[in-house]
C-alpha cells in the first residue's frame, strides 16, 4: 500500500509472441538461435509496448525474468556469449535485479511437489540424461552455475530462495524500497534515463526491477516482489 503505479511484465507474455512461443515449445523447431531470437522478439515487443511507455510515465516496472534468462539458457546450449549480449543490446538496464538463488536439490523437490517436471524445464532438448529427473538435475545445475556467473558480472542482488515465502518477500522489499525512495524525488527525463541505461547498473528514476531465478517454480513462491498496488495494464 505504498501508492506506486506498477506495471508487471513477464517472459514470453507479449501480445505478439506468446502464442508463437507456446506453439514452438510443442513442436520441434527449436534450434538454439531461433530459440533465443523468439525470446528476443517477445522481449522487444514488451519493451516497446509496455516497459518503456510505463517507465516514461513514471511507473515502477516489475519484470518476471529479464534478458539474463536468455543469456543463461543460450550459453548453456553452447551458443556464443557475445552474440546473445549483442542481440539484447537494445534492452534497458534495470535499476535492480533480484536473483532468487536456490540449489538444484531443493529445486528438484519443489518442482516435483508442485506441478512436476516438464520437458523444457528439464532441458530434454539437450539430451543430458535418460529421463526427466536426471536431465532436470544436470540441466538446472548448469543453469544455476551460469546464473551465478551472470549475477557476478551484472551485480545482481542475491536472495536465498530456499527460505519461506514471507522471508523472501521481506528480503525483496528491503532491496526494492531504497531504490523507489531514491527515484521518487527526481523527475523523469529522457536524457537522464538514456544516460542511466548507458552506465550499466546505475539507479535511475523510473525503477525497473527484474527478478531472475533458476526456474519458474520459485516464481510462484515469490511472485510480485514489491509494494505492488493497482497493477496497471499496458500503456
Amino acid at each position, binding site marked *: 500500500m505504498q501508492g506506486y503505479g506498477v506495471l508487471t511484465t513477464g517472459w514470453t507474455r507479449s501480445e505478439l509472441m506468446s502464442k508463437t512461443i507456446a506453439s514452438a515449445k510443442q513442436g520441434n523447431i527449436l534450434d538454439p538461435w*531461433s530459440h533465443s531470437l*523468439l525470446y528476443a522478439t517477445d522481449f522487444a515487443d514488451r519493451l516497446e509496448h509496455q516497459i518503456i511507455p510505463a517507465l516514461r510515465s513514471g511507473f515502477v516496472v516489475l519484470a518476471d525474468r529479464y534478458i539474463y534468462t536468455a543469456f543463461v539458457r543460450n550459453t548453456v546450449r553452447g551458443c556464443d556469449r557475445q552474440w546473445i549480449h549483442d542481440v539484447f543490446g537494445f534492452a534497458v538496464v534495470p535499476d535492480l535485479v533480484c536473483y532468487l538463488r536456490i540449489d538444484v536439490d531443493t529445486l528438484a523437490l519443489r518442482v516435483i511437489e508442485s506441478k512436476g517436471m516438464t520437458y523444457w524445464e528439464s532441458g530434454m532438448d539437450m539430451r543430458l540424461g535418460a529421463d526427466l529427473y536426471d536431465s532436470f538435475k544436470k540441466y538446472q545445475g548448469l543453469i544455476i552455475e551460469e546464473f551465478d556467473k551472470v549475477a557476478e558480472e551484472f551485480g545482481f542482488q542475491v536472495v536465498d530462495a530456499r527460505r519461506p515465502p514471507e522471508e523472501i518477500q521481506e528480503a525483496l522489499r528491503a532491496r526494492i524500497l531504497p531504490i523507489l525512495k531514491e527515484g521518487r524525488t527526481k523527475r523523469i527525463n529522457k536524457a537522464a534515463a538514456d544516460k542511466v541505461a548507458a552506465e550499466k547498473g546505475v539507479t535511475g528514476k523510473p525503477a525497473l526491477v527484474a527478478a531472475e531465478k533458476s526456474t519458474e517454480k520459485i516464481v510462484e513462491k515469490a511472485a510480485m516482489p514489491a509494494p505492488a498496488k493497482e497493477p496497471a495494464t499496458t500503456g
Partner: protein
Amino acid sequence: MTTPIIKSPYLSAHPYPGKLIIVEGIDGSGKSTQLSLMRKWLDSQGYNVFYTEWNSSALVKETTRRGKKTKLLTPMTFSLLHATDFANRLYHQILPPLKAGMIVLADRYMYTAFARDAVRGVSPSWVRRLYSFAIKPDLAFYFRVPIEVSLSRLLEGTRAELKYYEAGMDLGLSPNLVESFKIFQSRTMAEYDKIVDEFGLTVMDATLEIDEQQEQVRDIVSKALATYKPKRGTHVKREALFWRRFTLPESERAQGEADRA
C-alpha cells in the same frame, strides 16, 4: 552511422562441400524469376537443388502475418522476427544440404535485412551482429533495377497491387501507396548499393530481357560450380523437362544437326 563494421564470421567462406547461391533485389526486380529459371536449369543438369525463401518458416510466417495484420510490428520486432525465421531456416533447410554437399538456392538472404532494417532506422551494426551466426554464400546476385521499372512490373503483373509493408507504409513516408513505395524502395536501393561493396555481391542489370539475364546468370553459376562435385543419394528418373537452354553451344548444335540429317 559511421561506425566501422566489425569483421563477422560470415565474411569468410564456409567450410562445407555444398554450394549456397542467393539472390537479392528490391520487390519487382525479377530476382525470383531468375532464381526459379536457374533452379530448373540446375535440375536439368542433374544437380540436386534445395530451395528456400525469405520469411517462409511456418511458425514465424504466421506470427509475421498476425503482426502485420494488427500493425503491431515495430522496426525492432520486425527485424527480430525475420532473424528468427532466418535462423530457423539456416539450421533446418540450409545447413544440412550444404553439409551433405548439395546446392542450396535462397530467395533473399541476410542482405535483405541489412537493407530494409537500415531504412526502418535500426542500427546497421546491430543488425550485422544479429546475423553473425550466418554463413557467407558462395555466390550472391543483386538484381539492380530502377524504381519505375520494378513499379510497373508489380502493377502490371499478375498481382497488380502493392503490399503495405512492401511499400514501407509503416514508415509514414507518404499516405499514397505508390509514392511511399517509390521513397521506401529508393532508400532500400541506396542501402543495397552500400551492401554490394561491403559484401562483394555480383550486380546484375535487371532491366535486360529475362533470357539475356538468365544467360549471364548461368555463365556465372557455371564458373562458380567449376570445381564442385555434385552428390546425389538417389537415382530417381528425372522428370520430363519442358525446359531448354536458350542457345546451344556451337558443338552441340552441329551434333544435333548431324543427328537429324
